């Protein structure tokens, strides 16, 4: 069954009418093809209209859509071969962070990212996409491995944040993220980071230091979730929509302020509406971006990566 978000209600209603109309046609042998066609046009018009005027909060909702493709979905849709690698070589394997070498468009790449679960059991197993320190250390291990064998790195980010747990603190959640930030600046191979869903705070940034940081159209990336921002600044959960507006956390905002490098378009109706098309387009974007990055020397990439992040910020002097 499809999941409709509140603002998709009008589309859902029309789609329900379409189903009924088709059923009626089958049972009564009445020719409704003209009515069906016109209803289909209306639906696609309505969908386009709704999706062209999404608020920031609606994009947050879309970024969390339960049918949205996750990291492993992209890997299986885009890649010819994938060998998943596990473990941080110190504590354990973190199922909230996945990765491995893959064949993408005829070349070997390292793809890694946070991973959410599709059903209740999986969601728990993947810890809702919230990685522990082991996850960040596993990610760094895989990135170093990619560097060693001179393979480009693709990271995919979809996380409500790094896990705020007891053991996570004991094992140095802060240190693990901090290390990744510093180490990713020295990686000699091309690094492309893509926000494919939620990009919350340091937990997202911990695998998002790249030569190109891209955001899918209906995702968000900021220092805190709108709910938590609302709770802290307005002292109530109810201002999440205002918080989303105030934080300017959408892909368009982040690109406008120069905090990310580009936007990857989604199919009308969102990435969840057409996984195959979404993955096809993403593959195209990745391969194109890799071509661009391969024209630079490792030293150029590293210094441009450093300069780019160092120029972020607005102050008064």
């Amino acid at each position, binding site marked *: 069954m499809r999941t409709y978000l509140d603002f998709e209600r009008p589309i859902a209603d029309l789609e329900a009418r379409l189903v009924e109309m088709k059923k009626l046609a089958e049972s009564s042998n009445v020719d409704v093809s003209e009515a069906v066609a016109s209803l289909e046009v209306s639906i696609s018009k309505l969908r386009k209209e709704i999706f062209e005027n999404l608020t920031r909060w609606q994009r947050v909702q879309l970024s969390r859509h339960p049918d949205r493709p996750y990291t492993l979905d992209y890997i299986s849709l885009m890649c010819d071969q994938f060998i998943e690698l596990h473990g941080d070589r110190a504590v354990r394997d973190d199922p909230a962070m996945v990765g491995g070498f893959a064949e993408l468009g005829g070349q070997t790449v390292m793809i890694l990212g946070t991973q959410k679960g599709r059903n209740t059991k999986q969601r728990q197993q993947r810890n809702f996409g919230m990685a522990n320190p082991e996850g960040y250390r596993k990610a760094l291990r895989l990135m170093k491995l990619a560097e060693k064998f001179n393979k480009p790195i693709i990271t995919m980010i979809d996380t409500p944040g790094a896990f*705020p*747990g007891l053991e996570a603190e004991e094992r140095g959640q802060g240190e693990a993220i901090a290390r990744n*930030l510093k180490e990713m600046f020295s990686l000699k191979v091309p690094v492309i980071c893509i926000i494919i869903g939620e990009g919350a*705070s340091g937990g997202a940034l*911990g695998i998002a230091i790249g030569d190109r940081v891209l955001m899918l159209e209906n995702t968000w990336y900021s220092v805190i979730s709108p709910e938590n921002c609302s709770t802290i600044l307005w002292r109530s959960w109810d201002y999440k929509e205002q918080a989303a507006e105030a934080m300017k956390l959408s892909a368009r905002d982040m690109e406008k302020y120069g*905090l990310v490098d580009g936007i990857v378009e989604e199919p009308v109706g969102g990435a969840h509406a057409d996984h195959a098309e979404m993955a096809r387009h993403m593959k195209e974007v990745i391969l194109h971006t890799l071509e661009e990055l391969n024209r630079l020397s490792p030293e150029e990439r590293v210094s441009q990566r*450093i300069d780019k*992040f*160092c120029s972020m910020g607005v*102050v008064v002097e």
Partner: protein
Amino acid sequence: MSWFIRKEKGINTPTEMKREAPDGLWYQCPNCKKVMHTREHKMNAYTCVHCNYHEKIGSTEYFALLFDDNLFTELDANMTSADPLHFVDTKAYPERVKSTIGKTGLKDAVRSGYGKMNDLEVTIACMDFNFIGGSMGSVVGEKIARAIDHSLKTRTPFLMISRSGGARMMEAGFSLMQMAKTSAKLALLSEARIPYVSLLTDPTTGGVTASFAMQGDFNIAEPGALIGFAGPRVIRETIGKNLPEGFQSAEFVLEHGFLDFIVDRKDLKDKVTSLFRMLE
């Protein structure tokens, strides 16, 4: 334990020194509740003469404690926050900044400078918790980045004193990217083999812990400081249990292997100098 013969310090420090310390002639320790002379407390590096509780202090006090004769050249002293997002919550961000500047006399949540520490040229940046919870926005990130630039240019060791609740929400995405910016500069400092000591004081949490505060060649802390990524309230709500005694204290973090040592504030200057000298 003292590495050097300690010079008389703090006598000629200006009166605004006491900005973060309680005013008046007497100081009551919030930990053991005992009372001591304010002057005695100050001479003891703002630690309790009875129980050694480390009072929370700011950049003015740390600079006076660390720079010889409190002589230093401040960097970017007039840099203040912009409002790139036109952020409004219950109050407009520029108003919040303006009123905080008025209340604290500070321009933002970090100050930086260079000078001599036991005759050794050093660059120091120090956070001020009084300024919107020591939160990191563009000014904090930029001033730390430039302090590191100064350290690189002059090849002087870098000391960072952190005390922060984490991100400046009113700068949202810009705030987040300061973690990246400071990390980038520290990667360059590391490559240049210039030593970096990160001192974590009470409290250091959030994005500051997850970036420059944990990237020292030496990560050290003051006794009893709260240090963590997530704050205790968030963790308690996540796991639905009370947290064990001493959880996220400097001693706990040391025990788990994420600190090199805990330093008594009275020994800070001499111990950090000794460390830097050993690496010359």
